[in-house]
C-alpha cells in the first residue's frame, strides 16, 4: 500500500494570511508521524484539510486511497480522531458515549457492544462503563476520547495534542496506548507541543512553520542533522561575562536565553573541565534533543 495520507503542494489562505503555504506530507502506513510547529504554524488547519473538513485553495489530498474533499465521507469511515477539546457527551455515561459515537459510523448496536469490553479495557476504564462523564478525571476523559476514536476500528488515527493538560502519570498511560496502536499496525498522525513526547513516540517527524515544511526525518536524524550532539547549559551570577568567552573558546555555537547560556558542541570535555574550575557557575551537561532542534529551526534561537 502507498501512503496512508498524502498531501501535495497544499495551500490554504484566510484573507491575506496563507496559513498552509505549499505543504507536502507523506504518512507511511503503520508508523507514528509527528506534526510539530509553534502555535499558529498551521497544524490544526492541516489536520482539518487532511480530514476533508475544509477545502484547500490548491494542492491535492489523498487519505487511505480516497481523494479529498470529494470522498471525505468514505475516507473518514476508516479514520479515528482525538480532538484537542474532548467534546465528550456530558449527558451520557462512558458506555453510552461509545455506543452513540459508533452509530455515526453506521455500526449496529450489537456490533459496538461486542467491541465495548476491548475498548474500555484499552482505555483503562473497564470499571467505569456506567460512570457519567463529569465524574471522570482529566486523564480518564482523554483516554475515553482515545477509545471513542477507535470505535470504528480505524486504520488511521489523528491525534491533536492528546496529552495537553495531563499529569505525568496520565501522560504515560496515553503513551502506552499509542505504542500499542502502532504495534497493531495502525497509522498515527500526532500533533503535540511536547518534544519529549514526539521524540519517544514518533518514527518520523515533520516540523512546520508559517505553513511550510522546514524539516523532516526520524527524531535522531533530525537531531544529528541540525544540532551538535552535546548541550551544556550554564547558569550563574557571572554568566554575563566570564562564561561567554569561555563558550566561544570551547564550543561551535552558543545562544543566550534569559540568564542561561546554551552551548552546543560535539566535544564537551574541554568546556566541562574549564567549568569545573569555576564553582560560582552552575552547569548541566546533556545530550541534544528534539527541543533543541525545534527551537533552532522555528526561530526562537536568540543568536544575535
Amino acid at each position, binding site marked *: 500500500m502507498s501512503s496512508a495520507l498524502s498531501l501535495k503542494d497544499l495551500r490554504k489562505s*484566510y484573507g491575506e494570511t496563507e496559513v498552509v503555504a505549499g505543504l507536502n506530507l507523506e504518512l507511511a502506513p503503520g508508523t507514528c508521524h509527528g506534526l510539530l510547529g509553534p502555535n499558529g504554524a498551521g497544524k490544526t488547519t492541516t489536520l482539518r484539510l487532511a480530514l476533508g473538513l475544509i477545502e484547500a485553495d490548491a494542492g491535492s489530498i489523498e487519505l487511505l486511497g480516497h481523494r479529498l474533499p470529494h470522498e471525505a*465521507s468514505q475516507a473518514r*469511515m476508516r479514520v479515528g480522531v482525538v480532538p484537542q*477539546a474532548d467534546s465528550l457527551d*456530558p449527558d451520557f455515561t462512558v458506555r453510552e458515549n461509545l455506543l452513540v459515537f459508533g*452509530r455515526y459510523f*453506521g*455500526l449496529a448496536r450489537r456490533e459496538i457492544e461486542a467491541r465495548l469490553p476491548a475498548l474500555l479495557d484499552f482505555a483503562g476504564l473497564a470499571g467505569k462503563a456506567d460512570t457519567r462523564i463529569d465524574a471522570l478525571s482529566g486523564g480518564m476523559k482523554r483516554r475515553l476520547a482515545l477509545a471513542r476514536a477507535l470505535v*470504528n476500528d480505524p486504520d488511521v488515527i489523528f491525534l491533536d495534542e492528546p496529552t495537553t493538560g495531563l499529569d505525568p502519570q496520565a501522560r504515560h498511560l496515553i503513551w502506552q496506548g499509542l505504542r500499542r496502536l502502532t504495534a497493531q499496525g495502525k497509522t498515527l498522525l500526532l500533533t503535540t507541543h511536547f518534544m519529549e513526547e514526539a521524540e519517544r513516540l514518533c518514527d518520523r517527524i515533520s516540523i512546520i512553520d508559517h505553513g511550510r515544511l522546514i524539516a523532516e526525518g526520524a527524531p535522531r536524524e533530525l537531531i544529528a542533522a541540525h544540532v551538535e550532539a552535546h548541550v551544556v547549559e550554564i547558569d550563574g551570577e557571572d554568566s554575563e561575562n566570564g562564561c561567554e568567552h569561555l563558550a566561544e573558546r570551547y564550543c561551535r555555537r552558543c545562544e543566550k536565553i534569559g540568564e542561561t547560556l546554551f552551548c552546543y558542541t560535539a566535544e564537551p570535555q574541554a568546556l566541562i573541565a574549564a567549568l569545573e574550575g569555576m564553582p560560582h557557575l552552575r552547569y548541566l551537561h546533556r545530550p541534544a534533543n528534539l527541543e533543541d532542534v525545534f527551537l533552532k529551526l522555528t526561530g526562537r534561537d536568540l543568536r544575535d
Partner: protein
Amino acid sequence: MSTTRPAGGIRLTPHVFRLTFLPVWHRNFLVWKKLAIPSLLGNLADPMLYMLGLGYGLGRLLPDIGGVPYLNFLAAGTVCYSVMNSATFETLYSAFSRMHVQKTWAAILNTPLGLRDVLLGEWVWAASKSLLSGIAILLVIWGLGLQADFVMSLGLLPVIVLTGLCFAGLGLAINAVSPNYDFFLYYFTLAITPMVLLGGVFYPATELPAWLKAAADWLPLTHAIALARPLVLGQLPQDILWHGMVLLAYGLAGFWAACRLTRRRLLR
C-alpha cells in the same frame, strides 16, 4: 430504502434520500429520554398556564368569539404557540450548547457524517420534540372537550408538524449566527413576541387595523393559527395550501440558511 454500510457504501443512496442524519436525531432522543418528564412538563407549563389562566380568568369577562367561549377560541392558538416555543428553544439554546459549548457537532463532523446530516438531524429532532409539545396540548383540549369535532381536530397533527419544521428551521438559522446565548433575546424580542401578540393567539387577527394586519400576514405563526383554529372549531380551514406552503417555505428557507451559515461558521 437500503443503505449498505461498510466502507464506501454510505454514499450509495442518492444524497437527498440518505438517512444518515438518523444517528444525530437518535443521539438527541437518548439525551431527552433521560429527562423526558421534566422536559415535557417544562414545555407544557407555560402554554397551559396561558390557556387555562386567560381562558378561564379573562374568558368569563369576554363575550363569545364567533359563537364559541374564549377558552375554546384560545385552544388552537395555544397549540401553535406551544409548538413554536418548543421548536425555538430546542434550536436556539439546546442546539447552541451542542454546537458551541459541548462541541458535539464538531465531534460528529470527524465521522463520516457531514454538516447536512447534523443539521437535518437537529431539524427533524426539534420538530419531533415540538410535535410532542403540540400533542400534549391537544390531549388537554380533548380532555376538556374544547374541540367541536374530534375527527376534524386530528387535522391539527399535520399542522403541528409543519409549524414545528417552520420554527425549527428558522431557529437553526439564528443559532448559526449567534455569538452567545444572550443574542437569542433579540430573536425573542424582535420575532417571537410580535408573533405571539400579533399572530392571532389571543384574539382574531382580523381585529387589527389594516396596516397591522398586513404586517401580521407576513408572520408564520399567523398562518399556523389560520390552519389550526378552524380545525379546533370543527371547520375546514380556508386556503389550506397557501398557509401550508408559507409555513413550509419559512422552514425550508430557514434550514437552507442554517446550512450555509453554519458551514461558514464551522467548516472554513
